[in-house]
């Protein structure tokens, strides 16, 4: 059974009366990649800071690998690695000196230090640049170096705050690949991101936050929970007043767009045959029946935007598989 790497219970943080994080409760298992999504100011960074032992919560409690973040924040900081939004490297020092400084702060044994530094510099393809000043590195290289710094002491939990923000597509891809590699090593990764594609690609589960934790689940679960199974039916010819005639009780959110029908059902295995039969009875000539793939972006927007927008059953630009 997987043990709990991150446990938060009613975790809250206020700043001068303003609520940054409100009663957040979640559990992340060991080896899980957990995505944390939310708009700017939603409380993602504050949550990371609380979980990583940098900021004290104003309410609730949290444990990292069993260690209480309020009672022993210093121990928590030795157990976690944090990649902050900006790399925060010492620009005038060399690549090696930057990592050596952090290795010393984590009190890695001298025999281990060089091995660890070399290992990560080679893994992140920075070995050739180890004597160069950080100021001479590209943005992507700096981000990789910051990631190496966060991993140097082999943390049990890795917090990544917007790891690809501000990177060009190629550098962002490299960083994503590195995160994917790390997830293969069964590290617990807590990934804050705005990038929904990134979250969908990398994360086992996703939490959506806007001061409060709105939803948690796998990307598939989130889509299902919000939209059910969405079926797209293509007809050969348009049918008159189909939306009023298609009166099956299990259909949710029906929309007809010329020769294409968009609808939601709870149980496609049982209900799709009934749907097809009814359509044929109504004189429809069916070309294709398939399940629409909601993107995580749809889920995100559904939860984050205003109640008016929530009512829209389908976005016209949705992707259809």
């Amino acid at each position, binding site marked *: 059974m997987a043990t709990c790497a991150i446990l938060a219970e009613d975790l809250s943080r206020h*700043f001068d009366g303003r609520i940054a994080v409100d009663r957040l409760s979640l559990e992340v298992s060991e080896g899980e990649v957990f995505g944390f999504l939310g708009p700017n100011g939603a409380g993602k960074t504050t949550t990371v*800071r609380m979980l*990583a*032992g*940098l*900021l*004290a919560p104003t309410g609730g409690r949290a444990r990292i690998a069993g260690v209480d973040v309020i009672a022993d924040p*210093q*121990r928590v*900081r*030795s157990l*976690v*690695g*944090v990649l*902050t939004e*900006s*790399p*925060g*490297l*010492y*620009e*005038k*020092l060399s690549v090696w*000196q930057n990592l050596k*400084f*952090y290795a*010393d*702060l*984590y*009190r890695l044994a001298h025999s281990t230090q060089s091995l660890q530094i070399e290992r990560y510099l080679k893994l992140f393809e920075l070995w050739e640049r180890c004597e160069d000043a950080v100021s001479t590195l590209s943005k992507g290289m700096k981000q990789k170096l*910051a990631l190496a*710094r*966060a991993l140097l002491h082999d943390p049990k939990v890795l917090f990544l705050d917007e790891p690809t923000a501000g990177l060009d597509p190629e550098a962002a891809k490299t960083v994503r690949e590195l995160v994917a590699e790390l997830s293969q090593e069964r590290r617990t990764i807590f990934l804050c991101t705005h990038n929904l594609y990134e979250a969908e690609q990398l994360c086992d589960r996703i939490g959506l936050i806007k001061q409060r934790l709105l939803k948690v689940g796998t990307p598939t679960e989130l889509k299902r929970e919000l939209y059910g199974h969405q079926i797209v039916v293509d007809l050969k010819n348009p049918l008159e007043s189909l939306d009023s005639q298609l009166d099956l009780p299990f259909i949710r959110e029906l929309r007809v767009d010329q020769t294409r029908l968009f609808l939601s059902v709870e149980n496609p295995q049982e209900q799709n045959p009934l749907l097809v039969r009814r359509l044929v009875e109504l004189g429809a000539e069916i070309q294709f029946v398939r399940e629409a793939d909601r993107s995580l972006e749809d889920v995100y927007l559904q939860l984050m935007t205003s109640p008016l927008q929530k009512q829209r059953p389908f976005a016209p630009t949705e992707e259809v598989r």
Partner: protein
Amino acid sequence: MHRVWVVLLKEWREALKGGKILWVGTVALPMILLGASVYMMLSIGDLSALDDEDLRLVLHTLFSVFLLYFMLFPMIIPNAISVYAIMSEKEQKSLEPLLATPLQTWELFLAKVLSAVIPAVLITWTTFGVFVILVSRMLPAGVWAMIWQDFGVAALLTLVLFAPLASVFVTMTSMAIATRTSDARSAQLLSSFVVLPLALWALASIYQNALLQPANLLGLSLLLLGLDLLLLKISVKLFRREEILTRWR
């Protein structure tokens, strides 16, 4: 103390690559003032022609000026280093990753203070040592013994008490200003005003022939000790992890 030492070494590594302002503030200025002191001491003609009373008067005036120089070093040198120590972290956004390590904030604070105070005190002592060696070898026999007899206590008080306490005072004030300032130049400018009251006090003391009085130096040192303790209290609040993460801009 291991992590204090680690941060301290990092500070010095960075400071050594810190550019002209740091070099001017820490090395060039002391060298210029040392050169001026030695030149003044040696350019006053034939000291052996003066009687004891006149000689004492001349030496008293000269040594007051030299002592003022050596009082300025521990005030000027830490200013540049301490402002840089905070501003460079802020500009590079390196504070959060640093605070995410097991480093405690008191360790960070102590390392930052020591990174400015140690060079300031060492440079002051070294330049004074060089001054003593040069002047004692170049002055006529017996004159240096007279100087040391009359001003030795004042010199020791300046070096052993005033220099460290003034360095700590300037360092903590400059750091406090830097934590609340968003650019290095403003921080540098504002913190340079910190030196003024002390420098003016010292200058005024020369004219009242009071600078070399051990009692005055002791009093000033005690005042600085009080100010240092007050600043320490303020700095403890400024260097709380939350304060650094949320209010340092």
